C-alpha cells in the first residue's frame, strides 16, 4: 500500500521540518526543565555524597545542619568515637560566607573540617588543581565556579587566605559554590567574639565558654553494625538528634528542594500540555489544508482507516521529529545554563512516551475532521 503519510510529508518537507523544529524547541525546553529538576536533586546531594558519612549527629530537636541551625561541642566527636560500632567521627562546620571578589562578593558555603581528621569533605575526584588543606590556618580550597584561581588571596575576617586547591562541580544544595577551610579557621569565623565583646560579656557576668562549637558531628559505622541501631543508641544516651545518610538526604531533598521541584514539575506539565495543544493545532491545520484531497479520497471510496492512519502517522512522525530536534536543542544548550542541568536518557525516553501518547491524542482533532468530512463536498455540490 502506498504510504500516504510519507508522500504527504515529502511533498511539503521544508514546511514539515521547520514545524517539527519549532515544536522540537518547545520539547527541548521541557527536557531542560526536567534537567534543571534533576540538577537540583544532584546538587542537593553533592556535599552529602562527598562527605559520605553514615551518621549525622546534630543539636537535639533540630534538623541540622542544613535545614536548621545546629550547634554541638567539638569534643563531642570523641564521645561518639568511643561508642559501639563507630568507625570514624569528625566535627564539621557549615556556614554561609561572602568572598570578596573584584566587583561583587561571591556568596559561598564554607565547610570547615579537621585537616588531621579521618573524614574529609573534599572528594579527591573533584580536585582539579592544587591540593587539600595542609595547614591549620589561612588556606582555602575553592570550587572553580566561585571565580577564584589557584594562589589567589581572599580576605576573610581579619586574615588573608590562600587558595591552595580548586575543585569542580562542588555545590551546596542551593547551588552556591562550596569552599573548604580548616575547622579552626571556620570556628574563628563563625563563633569567635572580638576581645571587646568578651570584655563586655565578662562585665555582664556572662561566662565565655572555652569549649569550641561546631555544627555537626559526622561519623561512619564499622562494617557489620546496623546503622539504625547505632543511631538509636546515640539518640538514647547523648540527647542529640541523629540522622542517617538516607534521612539527611531526605531532609535536603524534601525540605529544601521540594518546593522548587514542584514548581518545576508543574511548569513541565504545563509545557507538555502546551506542546500537545500546539501539535494538535498544527495537525488540525495540516488536515484542513488537505480537506479537498480527503473528500476526494472518501468519494472514491477509500476507507476511513486509510485516511485516519495517514493523519495519525503524520502526527507521530511530527512528534518523533520534534522529539529528536528537542534532544539536539537541549544537548546543545544545557551546559550554558547557570545552574546544573542534568539530562538523563531515562527522562528523554519518558518524554518520548508522553509525546507519542500526546501526538495520538493531538491527531484526534484531525481524525474527527476526516470522519466528518463530506465526500460530496469534494466537487462542490
Amino acid at each position, binding site marked *: 500500500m502506498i504510504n500516504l503519510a510519507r508522500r504527504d510529508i*515529502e511533498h511539503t518537507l521544508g514546511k514539515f521540518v521547520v514545524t517539527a523544529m519549532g515544536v522540537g524547541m518547545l520539547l527541548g525546553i521541557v527536557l531542560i526543565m526536567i534537567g534543571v529538576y534533576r540538577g537540583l536533586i544532584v546538587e542537593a546531594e553533592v556535599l552529602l555524597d562527598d562527605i559520605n558519612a553514615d551518621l549525622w549527629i546534630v543539636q537535639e530537636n533540630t534538623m541540622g545542619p542544613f535545614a536548621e541551625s545546629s550547634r554541638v561541642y567539638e569534643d563531642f566527636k570523641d564521645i561518639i568515637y568511643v561508642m559501639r560500632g563507630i568507625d570514624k567521627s569528625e566535627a564539621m562546620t557549615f556556614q554561609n560566607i561572602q568572598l570578596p571578589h573584584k566587583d561583587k562578593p561571591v556568596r559561598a558555603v564554607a565547610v570547615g573540617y579537621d585537616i588531621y581528621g579521618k573524614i574529609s569533605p573534599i572528594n579527591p575526584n573533584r580536585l582539579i588543581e592544587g591540593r587539600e588543606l595542609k595547614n591549620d590556618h589561612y588556606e582555602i580550597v575553592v570550587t572553580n565556579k566561585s571565580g577564584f584561581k589557584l594562589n589567589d588571596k581572599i580576605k576573610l575576617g581579619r586574615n588573608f587566605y590562600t587558595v591552595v586547591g580548586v575543585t569542580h562541580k562542588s555545590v551546596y544544595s542551593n547551588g552556591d559554590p562550596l569552599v573548604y577551610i580548616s575547622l579552626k579557621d571556620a570556628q574563628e569565623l563563625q563563633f569567635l567574639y572580638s576581645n571587646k565583646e568578651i570584655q563586655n560579656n565578662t562585665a555582664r557576668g556572662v561566662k565565655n565558654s572555652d569549649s569550641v562549637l561546631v555544627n555537626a558531628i559526622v561519623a561512619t559505622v564499622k562494617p557489620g553494625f546496623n546503622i539504625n541501631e547505632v543511631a538509636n543508641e546515640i539518640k538514647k544516651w547523648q540527647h542529640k538528634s541523629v540522622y542517617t545518610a538516607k534521612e539527611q538526604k531526605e531532609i535536603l531533598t524534601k525540605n529544601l528542594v521540594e518546593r522548587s521541584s514542584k514548581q518545576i514539575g508543574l511548569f513541565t506539565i504545563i509545557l507538555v500540555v502546551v506542546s500537545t495543544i500546539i501539535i494538535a493545532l498544527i495537525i488540525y491545520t495540516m488536515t484542513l489544508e488537505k480537506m479537498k484531497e480527503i473528500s476526494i479520497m472518501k468519494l*472514491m*471510496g477509500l476507507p476511513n482507516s486509510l485516511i485516519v492512519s495517514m493523519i495519525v502517522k503524520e502526527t507521530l512522525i511530527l512528534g518523533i521529529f520534534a522529539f529528536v530536534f528537542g534532544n539536539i536543542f537541549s544537548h546543545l544548550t544545557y551546559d550554558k545554563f547557570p545552574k546544573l542541568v542534568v539530562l538523563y536518557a531515562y527522562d528523554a525516553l519518558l518524554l518520548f512516551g508522553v509525546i507519542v501518547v500526546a501526538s495520538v491524542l493531538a491527531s484526534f482533532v484531525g481524525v474527527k475532521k476526516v470522519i466528518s468530512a463530506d465526500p460530496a463536498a469534494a*466537487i462542490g455540490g
Partner: protein
Amino acid sequence: MSNTAIKVQNLVKNFGKGDSLVRVIENASFEIQKGEIVALIAPSGAGKTTLLMMIGCVLEPTSGEIWLGEERVYGNKWVAKDTRKIRREKIGFIFQAHYLIPFLNIIENVTLLPQANGVSEKISKEKAMELLKYLEIDDKAYNMSSQLSGGQNQRVAIARALANNPQIILADEPTAALDGERSVSVIKMLKKIAREQNVAIITVTHDDRILPYCDKIMKIENRTIVFQDSDERII
C-alpha cells in the same frame, strides 16, 4: 445475467424541510445497460450532480430504489451496508476538475484505489501503466500532477476512474475544462472504454459537440428523467 448496469425506480430527492424544502428529483425511473454511454443534460441547478451522486452512493436519496448491476443498493434506505465499498469496487468517478492527489505522483494516483482494494503493488502498477499507455500519458507516470497540463491531468483522472475495473463510470462534465478537440477525444475514449470493457457510463455535459458520440441522451425535465434519441449518432 441481466445486461442492466443501473436501474433506478421512483427515485425522489428533496433537500431541506418545511418552508425550505427543495424538490430536485421526483419519481425518476430509468435503466442503463452495460457498455452504454449516456449523456445527461439539463440546465444548471436541475439536479444532474445530485442524480450522479445518488447513483454513486455518495448522496442518500429521499426515497425510491437503485440497483447497481445485480445488487439492490438503495430501497428507501441504504440496503448496502458499506456504500464506500461499493464506490471503491464498482464505480469510477470523473469530474470537471481532475482532483488528483497533489502529493502523489501520477502512477500512485492511479494505483491508490486498486491497492486499497487489496491488489498488489506490482499488479496494480502494471495495470496502471497499461491504462496510462492507453490514454497516451505513460511518459508522465512518475511526474507530479502539478507538472502536467489540464488535458493530461484529465486523462490521468480517467485512468484513475478505470483503475478499479468499475462497472459504472459517473462523469460530471469531464470535458468542461478542455478545448473542443480535446473534449471530443476524451468522449471518444470514454466510448471506446464503454464498448471494450462493457462499462456503463453516464456523463453530464453542456457541450453539444460530444452528444453525437453518446448512445442515449438523458434529460431532467420537470424534476424527472426523460430520454431523447440523439439525432446524428456516430456508431
